[in-house]
Structure formats: structure tokens, C-alpha cells
């Protein structure tokens, strides 16, 4: 079976020494040859050279070529060993994709390996599990990582594309009632506008603004433990409103910060307690939800007050997660000690005062240590998702460009729909939506057909 060529980062996305970008499929050698500058390839040999995108040098690399069937997937495979560091690895992958590979689906290398007979039967179940669990995660993360305004923008662009496609299609299906003559002028204006909007999205994706990158760090604790104060200290400005009234933070606040070269995506949450206040309750539920998806939890304990049922609930919540416990308010008279908490849960613990900004440096050091020991890591999926989203926006952009070309060449209107729908589908892959019956439904709901 002929397969297209896929690529992904095969190592963990961290600031480690080496990162490997793997390309698999029929065109992998072809793609590698276009971007690799060095000695010609030989099978199963390591080559030293450079990855370049045209004239732009990207990294100094080692490239290994494995012709199928003697490779992990059984297909022609190229592995590019580049310098570690998230930025470089990402850039190499993007270059590979730019030259013709497609971002691999979760578990796709494994799936191909299996389908090409590179694994035995006993591994089949495991393969199925890998695929389904990775997919589930990707699906969840793909949408949840999308920033709200980006998601909204993409939905707007999609609905505009759908509307115009539906109009054209209605006219084609019912030419005696609806005429599409002269519509191309109108469409041209819309498509130009949409092209501009997609371009903007593409630019912002280069700045990493499409999805949230970084270690998802969630600050939890009972009300008035000092979570918002901590966020403000970490960010270095007053982002969260801090009062001494319990339950001040009712929604989820989010900030990106750099700590000793590690990017953290810090999320402040409403204090967790049983509450009758509906608005606060929603905030509490959100806090729990965020915590369950976190890569790292910072649990702020109010050391000046006795542990209560809310603290015990939080302790249970973080038991199986990577977490740091902060004993806050060390500036006040404390009633909670390290030993007391240690009898319930074993996690790194630091005494701090968010108010006096003491102990913060210790926290930073602890986090850094955890990161470089690999205890906490970036979620690889986030990077892959980001690249996948970017590719999708690029695809949509080039489809809309084709619409412009068709309009300029005076092609019949039915050709516009083909590219419009391609753009619609590409953008849908970002928001997790397919075409399905969208077009037919739009036709019926927006336009009056004959008979």
C-alpha cells in the first residue's frame, strides 16, 4: 500500500542534548536530500552535515538513512539528530514538513510499523492501546490548548467560508431559482479579507501564540492561601487581584513566565472549598479540572491556619501528580509544619512568604532541578499540535489563494467550491470539526431552494 510521508520529533521535547526528527515514507529520502547539505547518503550510515531551508542554515546535524524494509516502520526512514533544545528541534521538523512531509498522527509510526509486519502479533494489542490513548490525549489537548480568541477566529473564518460555498452550491443545485452570476466579485473581497486573517494567524503561530506552550503549572490551594500573591510574585507584576477576602479569585488566570530558561505556563485558580456561591463554585470546579490536566501542581498551604478538609481534598487530588508544596505565610506565626504535611504526602516542600517574597529563589531552583532531572517535562504533544495547527492554517491559506487564482482566471464558479471546501476542512482539523453534513445543512438553512 502506498503511504504518504510523515514526520515527528522522536525524542522528548526538552532542553536535552540531542533531539531526533524522524521522517518515514516513500518520499523521506527525497525530502531529506532537499534540505541536507553534506556528503551523499548511503544506507544505514551516519552522515554529518547541515539542515538548510534554502539559504537559511538551521542546524548542524547527523543524519541516518535507513531504507525500507530495514527500519522501525518498515518504510524508507531518515532520522535527523539535531542539537537538543526545543527551538531547534521544532525548526528542523517544520522544515521537513515544509518540504513535503505531513505531521505524523499520534501513534502513527507504531501503527505503520505494525501494518508493515515489523511487530509480532503479541504486540498488536499494545499498539492499539498506544494509538487510542495517544489519540484521546491529542484530541483533548488539541482543542484545550487552542487559545480562546484563536479558536473563535478560526470558527468565524470557517463559517464565512461555509456561507459562501453554500450560496454557490445552492445556485448550482437550483440554477432556475438562484443565479450566481457576478458573485465572483463579491467572493473576491471576502477571500482577500480571509487571506489576510489567516496570514495574521500564521505570523502569530511563529511567535507561539496559537497554543500555549510550556509546562502547564497550576497553582492550587484553599481560599486565601496566597495563590494569587504567588502568581504576582512569579510574574513580577500585579496580575491577579489580591485581597484578604476569601474567594477573591473566581476564575482561572493564566500567565507565561520564564524561570531559569524554562517556560512555565502558570495558572492561578480559585481556592478550593465547599461553597454555596454559584459563581465561586464554577471557579472551584474549573480549578479541579485544570489541576487534573496539569504537568505540575504548586500547592500553596496557608501555614498560619490549621489544615482543614479542603487541604485534605487537595492532598488527595495531587497525590499522583508532580507537585511542589509551598508553606506560605512564613512571615506570620505558623501552625502547620513540614513534618505535619509529610505524614500525609511526600512531595518537595519549601517555606515561603509570597508577601515578603522570601523562598521564591528556592522554589525556582527546585523547579529547575526537577526539570533537568526529567521529573517534569514539556508535553511533546503540545509542540506537535502547534506544528499541526500551523500546517493546517498554511493549507487553508494556500487553498484560498487557489480560489483567488480561479477567480482571476475566470474559472466557472463550481471550481471555487472545491478549494473553499479544502480550506474549510483544513481549518476544521484544528478545531476538531469535520465537514460532515455542514454544507448541505447550511444550504437548507440559509437559502431558499425551489419546487
Amino acid at each position, binding site marked *: 500500500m502506498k503511504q504518504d510521508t510523515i514526520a515527528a520529533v522522536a525524542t522528548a521535547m526538552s532542553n536535552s542534548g540531542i533531539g531526533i526528527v524522524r521522517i518515514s515514507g516513500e518520499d523521506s529520502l527525497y525530502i531529506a536530500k532537499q534540505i541536507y547539505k553534506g556528503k551523499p547518503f548511503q544506507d544505514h550510515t551516519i552522515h554529518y552535515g547541515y539542515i538548510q531551508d534554502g539559504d537559511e542554515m538551521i542546524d548542524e546535524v547527523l543524519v541516518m538513512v535507513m531504507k525500507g524494509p530495514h527500519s522501525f516502520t518498515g518504510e524508507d526512514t531518515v532520522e535527523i539528530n539535531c542539537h537538543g533544545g526545543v527551538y531547534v528541534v521544532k525548526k528542523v521538523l517544520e522544515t521537513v514538513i515544509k518540504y513535503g512531509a505531513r505531521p505524523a498522527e499520534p501513534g502513527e509510526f507504531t501503527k505503520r510499523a505494525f501494518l508493515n509486519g515489523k511487530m509480532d502479533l503479541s504486540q498488536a494489542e499494545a499498539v492499539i492501546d498506544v494509538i*487510542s490513548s495517544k489519540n484521546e490525549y491529542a484530541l483533548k489537548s488539541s482543542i484545550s490548548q487552542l487559545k480562546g480568541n484563536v479558536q473563535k477566529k478560526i470558527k468565524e473564518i470557517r463559517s464565512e467560508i461555509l456561507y459562501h460555498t453554500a450560496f454557490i452550491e445552492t445556485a448550482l443545485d437550483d*440554477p432556475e431559482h438562484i443565479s450566481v452570476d457576478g458573485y465572483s466579485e463579491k467572493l473576491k473581497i471576502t477571500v482577500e479579507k480571509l487571506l489576510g486573517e489567516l496570514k495574521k494567524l500564521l505570523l502569530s503561530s511563529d511567535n507561539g501564540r496559537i497554543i500555549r506552550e510550556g509546562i502547564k503549572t497550576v497553582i492550587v490551594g484553599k481560599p486565601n492561601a496566597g495563590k494569587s500573591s504567588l502568581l504576582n510574585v512569579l510574574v513580577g507584576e500585579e496580575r491577579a487581584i489580591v485581597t484578604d477576602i476569601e474567594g477573591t479569585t473566581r476564575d482561572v488566570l493564566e500567565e507565561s513566565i520564564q524561570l531559569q530558561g524554562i517556560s512555565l505556563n502558570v495558572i492561578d485558580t480559585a481556592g478550593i472549598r465547599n461553597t454555596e456561591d454559584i459563581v465561586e463554585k464554577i471557579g472551584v470546579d474549573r480549578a479541579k479540572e485544570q489541576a487534573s490536566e496539569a504537568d505540575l501542581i504548586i500547592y500553596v498551604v496557608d501555614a498560619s491556619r490549621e489544615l482543614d478538609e479542603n487541604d485534605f481534598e487537595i492532598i488527595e487530588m495531587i497525590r499522583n501528580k508532580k507537585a511542589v508544596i509551598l508553606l506560605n505565610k512564613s512571615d506570620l506565626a505558623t501552625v502547620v509544619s513540614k513534618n505535619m504535611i509529610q505524614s500525609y504526602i511526600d512531595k518537595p516542600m519549601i517555606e515561603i512568604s509570597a508577601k515578603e517574597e522570601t523562598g521564591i529563589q528556592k522554589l525556582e531552583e527546585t523547579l529547575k532541578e526537577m526539570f533537568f532531572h526529567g521529573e517534569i517535562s514539556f508535553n511533546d504533544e503540545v509542540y506537535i499540535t502547534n506544528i499541526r495547527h500551523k500546517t493546517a492554517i498554511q493549507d487553508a491559506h494556500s487553498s484560498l489563494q487557489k480560489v483567488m487564482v480561479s477567480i482571476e482566471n475566470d474559472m466557472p464558479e463550481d471550481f471555487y467550491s*472545491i478549494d473553499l471546501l479544502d480550506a474549510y476542512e483544513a481549518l476544521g482539523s484544528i478545531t476538531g470539526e469535520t465537514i460532515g453534513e455542514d*454544507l*448541505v445543512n447550511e444550504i437548507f438553512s440559509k437559502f431558499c*431552494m*425551489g*419546487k
Partner: protein
Amino acid sequence: MKYSANSVWENKDEYDVVVIGAGHAGCEAALAAARLGLKTIIFTVSVDSIALMPCNPNIGGSSKGHLVREIDALGGEMGKVIDQTFIQSKMLNKSKGPAVHSLRAQADKANYTKTMRKVLENQENLEIKQAEITDILSENGKVIGVQTYSGAIYKCKAAILCTGTYLKARCIYGEISNATGPNGLQAANYLTDSLKSLGIEMYRFKTGTPARIDKRSIDFSKMEEQFGDEKVVPFSFTTNPEDVQIEQASCWLTYTNEKTHEIIRKNLDRSPLFSGMIEGTGPRYCPSIEDKVVKFADKNKHQVFIEPEGLDTNEMYIGGMSSSLPEDVQYAMYRSVAGLENAKIVRNAYAIEYDCIDARQLSPTLEFKKIDGLYSGGQFNGSSGYEEAAAQGLIAGINAALKILGKEQIVIDRSEGYIGVLIDDLVTKESHEPYRMMTSRAEYRLLLRQDNADQRLTKIGYKVGLISDERYRYLLDKQDIILCEVERLEHTSVGTSKEVQDLLEKQGSTLLNSGTTLAELIRRPELSYEVLETIDKNRVLLEICREKNPTCAEKLYHEVVEQVNIYIKYEGYIKRQEKQVEQFKKLETKRIPDDIDYDSIKSLRIEAVQKLKQYRPISIGQASRISGVSPADISVLLVFMEQYGK
């Protein structure tokens, strides 16, 4: 009263195929089965209603014209009959791309019915019988015969349900409700219960038709006359184009107005649609005038097409104004339209409700998954339209015959024809309204053109046994010639000679700076194969056609020129879609074993397991189109099947 025990008797003539219903689906089904050599009998509640057109007086239209072409390419009858009985014909969307060109012809209804009946009556192996079927007889999940209202049993090996809108039919306008089929014909009131007892799940749909008005009461001077095309293109690939250049009848265009809408709005409470008297689900694409007025309140007029029902009748069909409003409102509403001020209504508009099935109970061969030998086609399957019905009838008839003959049944896939899209949508997707074909439903529209239906499907028709050797030979020649000619044009260079530049200038085309090929020139929108004749020195196409087929050389020549133009002009798009089809086929050809146990596949999501168990798709491709089955589920299925295959 249905039969009593002592009136039961067994007809000793055994049949291979029983077809129930002689509408557009039934006719194609019966003809296909009989032509494939099977002993076939077709039942109808009235022999006079064979191939009746109870609604609009036309065949074809956007995407429906494609279906008729495909039916013809497979060896069906509809195209041939309409070519003999049309009174006006138009190619719709002629200014658009070739993919959406669509033929639509006004039929002389009476003549259409008569002509099709004659074909049936003279078909070898085919009997016509007027009787209502009340029971499907089965044994161990397999069809063994049918029983009529009078109790007679007809044994058979396969039965095809083509009951149209007749099952428990009810015609409604205002507060009037008649338990009849269309046009006051007898409804079939018993079969539904028999089907239910076989475990078949039924839906109730509705549709409607406008009034027919006496031509003598219409003032045509207030309307716009609509003519047919100057040069008529036939539906059937076998019809000689010269035979269809007839004198054509006209249609007329007028509009509703604010007054019409006011009358309708005022009387909405008397509409059975709004009062709740109608339970069935109606189609969104074919709304009644009252629906249109409510839903598109901002439109102050709607088009109304006045179409002749035939040459020998004064009845005119009022297209665009179907309704189920009470009789007095109908008069007021029609008479508010320009030109209809003095309208005499011959037949009132009405809505009709009927039983049909959730077609997801069928496999793509149109056989019931749970009942061996039981097939169905047409409106019974939840579709609407004569053409959709005929297409399914043909496939059901072919497959019932192939099954009895012990041959592999056919499935047209989504990349091969609108018929494939139609059937796949019906048997895969959930639908709550009668399904109408639309070009936007076809994802490979550029490949599924009405002009190349023969190239897509005639080979299949030939393999099945419905296409003659001669017709097949003609197709093969045609395809050869097209390929050679395209190849030649792509490799024939033209320089910047004066002759070439003069021609380009004359055609308003940019002059050449350097040499190019003829194909490149044809790609320019303002140029075509025909226009380049004088600079194409080696052109011998007509001679080749004469040599290959002396009797039909002209026809062949024009068909080849059309294909060459389209192929070269749209090559880029065509190749793109061909690539997509390649991807599509991969999943489509991965057949899922019948005995697959979805429960044993641990990693499938629960919703996917339920849907897959319920609808049991035949291929991975079909599975991927079931709502509730995600791409991840498909990956899991693929891996599982690989394991299963070993």
C-alpha cells in the same frame, strides 16, 4: 378486508424475482432482472399507474440529470424513455464548469407512462400483475415468496420492495385527509405490518405537490416564456442526437407577491403542517409555499414555474407552490399570482404521508442485512425523486439477479458515480427527511460528470450483462481515441508563426512570445479544440472516427471533442481529484469481515462499538463515514483487522 384462510392458494408458477411496485424504481428493477434472464413478476396496485409521474412533469435537473445518464450507462431504461417522450429540454448550468452541467427535460407524462409500460409489456421473462402485496413470506431469515391481498402466494428467490409513497399513504390538504396514494390511487395498507414483523424499522415521511391548473384559465401574457435549448442533447448515450431535435413546448415564469404571502400567513393556522395533523418529516429542499413564506419571511416574492403536463392535456403544473392549505385558501393564493387571476384548479395541491424505512438497515447492495433475498429501492428507502428511485431500482434489480445467479453483486462507490453517493449516503448516514440528490453531496464531482457517465459505468453494465457487445465496443473505441488525441495535442508544438498569431488575435487571446503546445492553447478559457482547427495541421480525428465506426462517426467525433476539451482544460483539477480518489479507494477496498466481533476490540470507544454493531459497515471506508466513529477508531480497526487477517 384482507384475505381469509380459505382464500389462500399457491400460484404454481415459481419466480426468481418479485418486484413490488411499478413506479420508477420498480420498472428499472424488473427490467434489469428480466434482462439478466431471470423469471420476474412485477406487482402494481394499478397497471395504469406504471411509471407514473405524480408530481413534477420533468426528468433530470441538477445532479438528477447525472443520475439518468448513469442509469443509462449501466443499461437502464429511463434515459431512453424520456428521450422519446420529452417536450422540452435544457442543459442547466451551461455557463458553469462541465461537472455541474445537467440535463433537464419536460416530459409528456401520459406518453412517458405509456412508453415505459410498453417496454415492460414486451420484455421477455417479465410478467405484470395487478395486485396489492400484503405479506413478505420468509423462512429462516430468507425470503421465499409474497402474498397478495386476495391471499394468493407467489414463490420467489428474491423480492424487491419499490412501494414508493404508497405504504399507509394519506393525502392531506386543510382538514381533508384521504387514505389514498398519489392521485387518489389505492394505498397499500397491510405490507407495513408484515415488514415490521420481520424486524424492519419504519419511518414516516411526507412530501407534497402543487395544484394543476387548466391552461385555458391562465393569462400567459403576464408571464415570461421559457424556451428549451436550441440544440437538444439526449439523455441516453444510445440515442442519435438527430432524433431529439423536435419542436418544443414552452414553460412560463411568474412570481408570488406580498398579497400571496399575506393570504398564506393569515391562514397558517388552517394548514395541517402547522396544526400538527401531519406527523411525517418533510424535505427541506422542496418546501411547500407556506414553509417558504414562514422560513424566508424577508423574501417578498418567490418564483412560480408553469409547466405543461403533456401535449394532449390542458393541465399545467404550478412549480414552486406545493401546499397543503385548505381548498378555499388554495384558490385565493393561486389567484393572487400574476397571470393566474382566473385560475381554474383541476387538481388540488396536497401533502402526502407514507411509510418508508431507515435505509441503514440495508447493505450497499440494497439487500436487507437481516433478511436474505429482500431488496428495496426508491422512495421506500427514504429518497425522493423519480431519478433517485430509478437509480436504486436498477441497482436492486441487478443485485437480486446477480445473487440468484451466484455472481458477485455490484456496489458503485462514491468515486464512480452519483448512484454511489446516493446509495452510500442512504445506507450510511442518518436522515430525517426524504433524500434528494445534489451535486454538492458528491466529493469527487469533477470526475462524476454527466458527459462521462459512459466511461465511468458502461464497463460495469457490460460485465453485469445489460450492455451489448456493440455498445461496449463503441465505448472502448471512444476511450482509445480520446487518449490518443490528448496525447497528440500535448506533444504537438506550435511556433509563433503569423498564422498562429493571427488566429490568437482573432480570438482575443494573448499572442505567443515563444513556442508552446496545442494542449497549452486549449487550456486558455477563450480557446478550444474546435477553434484551433486551422493551425492543427495533423488533425485527422474525424477520419479516425470514420475508420473505427463508419455508422456513428459524427456522433463519436463530437463526443471525443467534448472529452478532449474537458480533459485538457481542467486537467489540473481532475488530477487532484484522481489523487484524492486513490486515497479514498484504499479504505474503501478494505473489507470488514462479516463476523467481526466489535465487543472484543478493547480500544474502540463505546459509542463507536454501538454504531458499528448496529450498522455493520462493509468496508473501513464506509465505517469512517458513520457519525460517531472517529479517525482514532478507524486506526484501531485497521490494526485489529491486520491482526485478524493473520
